[in-house]
C-alpha cells in the first residue's frame, strides 16, 4: 500500500466516481453515485465514515437526507441519525443490517460500494446480496 489502505482504496474508487478523501476526518465521499431505479434523485452522494478500526470494521454509510424511495422510507434508512458533529444533511444507511461478513483481508471500499448498490436496489430486503445472486 503506497499511502495507507484507505487512501489507496479511495484512489481506486476514483477510477469510477469522483471521490473526496479526507484523512483528518476519516471520511470518503462518493460524488455522483448512480442510485438504482426507484430512488430520487438518481445521482447523489454516498458518505463513508471510516472507523478508527478500519479495515477491521465496515465503515458507517450515509446517504443524502433528500434521497427518497418510490415506496416510502426503506427499512434500512435511519432518518434523523446522522454523522457525529450534527451534520443534518445525511441519513444513516444501515448496511450492517444485512449481517455482512466484512473480511478485512478481502473487502474494500470498492466492495462496499458494490454492496451499497445491491442494498439500495432492494432497500427493504434483509439479504439483498443473496437475492442479487439468484
Amino acid at each position, binding site marked *: 500500500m*503506497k499511502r495507507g489502505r484507505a487512501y489507496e482504496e479511495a484512489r481506486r474508487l*476514483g*477510477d469510477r466516481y469522483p*471521490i473526496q478523501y479526507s484523512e483528518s476526518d476519516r471520511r470518503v465521499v462518493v460524488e455522483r453515485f448512480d442510485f438504482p431505479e426507484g430512488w430520487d434523485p438518481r445521482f447523489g452522494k454516498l458518505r463513508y465514515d471510516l472507523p*478508527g*478500526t478500519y479495515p477491521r470494521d465496515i465503515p458507517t454509510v450515509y446517504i443524502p437526507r433528500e434521497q427518497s424511495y418510490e415506496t416510502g422510507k426503506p427499512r434500512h434508512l435511519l432518518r434523523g*441519525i446522522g454523522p457525529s458533529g450534527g451534520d443534518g444533511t445525511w441519513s444513516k444507511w444501515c448496511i450492517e443490517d444485512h449481517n455482512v461478513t466484512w473480511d478485512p483481508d478481502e473487502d474494500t471500499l470498492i466492495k462496499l460500494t458494490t454492496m451499497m448498490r445491491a442494498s439500495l436496489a432492494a432497500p427493504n430486503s434483509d439479504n439483498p446480496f443473496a437475492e442479487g445472486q439468484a
Partner: protein
Amino acid sequence: MTRRLRLPAAVVRELRAELLREDGQERFAFVDAGTDDGSLLAGRVDPVPDEDLARQSRTACRPSPAVEREHVSDCYDRGLSPVLVHSHPFAENPRFSGIDVESMGRFREWLTGLFPDRTFGFAVVGETGVEAVVRDGDRLASLPIEVVGEWKLDAPVPGSTDRFAPGTGHDASRAAGDASGTTDDVGAGGGERTLPADGREGERIDDRFDRNVRAFGAEGQRRLQSATVGVVGVGGLGSMVAEQLARLGVDELVLVDPDVVEESNLARLVGAYDHHVGKPKVAAVREHCWRSAPTDLTVETVADRIEARPEVLDDCDLVVGCVDEVRARSFCNEYAVKHLTYYVDAGVRIDTEDGRLESMAAYVQTVAPGATACFDCLGRHDREATRLERQSAEERARGVERGYVDEDDLEPEPAVVHLNGLCASTAVSAVVDIATGAKRPPEFVRHDSIDHEMTALATEPSAACPTCGDDGVLGVGRRSFGDARFTPESADGQSEETPSD
C-alpha cells in the same frame, strides 16, 4: 527519548535468515521504517535478490542503482524512510568497514541532493550483532539498536539497548529537562539506601522499594522507575493496574478514560468513594495513585476516549489496555503496532445463562509488535461488538425496535472485583517482566476462574494479520498524506489525483 533503530525480533530473524547464508556472500536488503521522535521503526524487510545486485562478493555488495532508486523513491512515497542493510557474514558483531563508510558518505550526498528533507539509515548485520547509522544533517550519526521482544530471538543482539534502561528512555529527556529530577531527590530527609553492587554507586533507591529490590534487583527497580506507562481505561481493572504500578515505583503514569464515576462502579473501582460519584474516573484514580506512591510520581490524566487523543501515548514506553470496548482495545493494539510500543491487553469475561454462572475468565496478552502475535493475529477483534459500540443510544434503541439489536446485548456486562484483581495482577506481572527483563513475559494467559486453571501460550505474529502482517502497519509510525480528490479517467485516459484544500 534517545533515538535509535527499533527492530522487532521478527525483523532481526528475517535479516539474519536472508542475509547470512552458508556461501558467505554479502547480501543486501531494504528495511522500510517509520519515524518517531528521531528513531527509526523497522517494519517491512525487502531483501534484494542476488540477480539485482550490481556487485556481490564475500567482502562487498551493492544493489544496482535502478533498484536502489526505485525502492528509495517508493519508500518515501509511502511516507517511510529506507534503511539500507547489508551483511558481514564473516563477523559475529560487525562494524561498518572503511569501504562501507566511504560508500555511505557518497550515497548520503547523492540522496540528500535528491531528497533534502528526508531521513534514511544504514545498517550492517553480522551473525548476532547489528550496527546502524542515520542521516543527521550533513553527516551520519550512530544509532543504538533496540530489539522489540528480544526474548523471542535464539541469539540476542549484543550491545542492544532498550527503552527501560535508565537514562536511555523517555526518562532521559525528562532528566535532561530537569537535572534535579533524579532519585537523589526521592524521600529527601532519609529513607534511602545506596546500592553500589551493580556499579551504580551513589544512585539511591527509596527504602520503600527494599522488598522489590530483593525480588528483581536494584537494576530491575531502576528500570521500573524509569518507565512511563499508559493505562487506557481506569475502571475496575485499570484502577488496580494503576495502583500496582504506582506502588511498584513506576515514575510516570498516563491515565486515559472518558467516563465519570458512577455508583455502580464503587464496588470495583480502587480509590473511588461516594464523594467521587460524578467526577472523572481518571481524577479519582490519580488521587489514589498519589496517596499510594512516592511524592515524585507524575500522573497525567486524560478524560477522553483514546481514539480522540492518541498522542498522549507517544511518551509511553508501554501501554496497558484495560478497556471494556473492543474498538478501544483494537485501537491501542494498532497504535502499538504502528509505533513498535509494547502493549499489554487485559480483560475479563463473565457469561451467565438464566442467572447461572457459565464461565468466568481473565485474559492477558502481551503484544511486542513484530515479535509476538498482536490482538488481531489471534482474531480477537469482535466486529459485532464494535458495531454496537459505534452506535449512539438513540440508534441502539431504534435497532431494538427494528429487530436488528438484541436487547440483552445492551445490558451491562457482569463484573466482580476479585476477577479484576486476578487479571490486574497478571497484567502488571507482564509489565514488570518486560520492564525489568527479570524473566520472559507471558505472551497470552487465560485464567479460568471457575475451574481455577491457568493456560499460558507462546504466540507468533501472523503474516496474514491485517494489522501487523505483510499488508499491515507494522512500524509505520504516524504518517500523514493529507486530503485528496480523485476523479475518473479524463478524456486523455489519465486518472487525475489532486490534493484538496
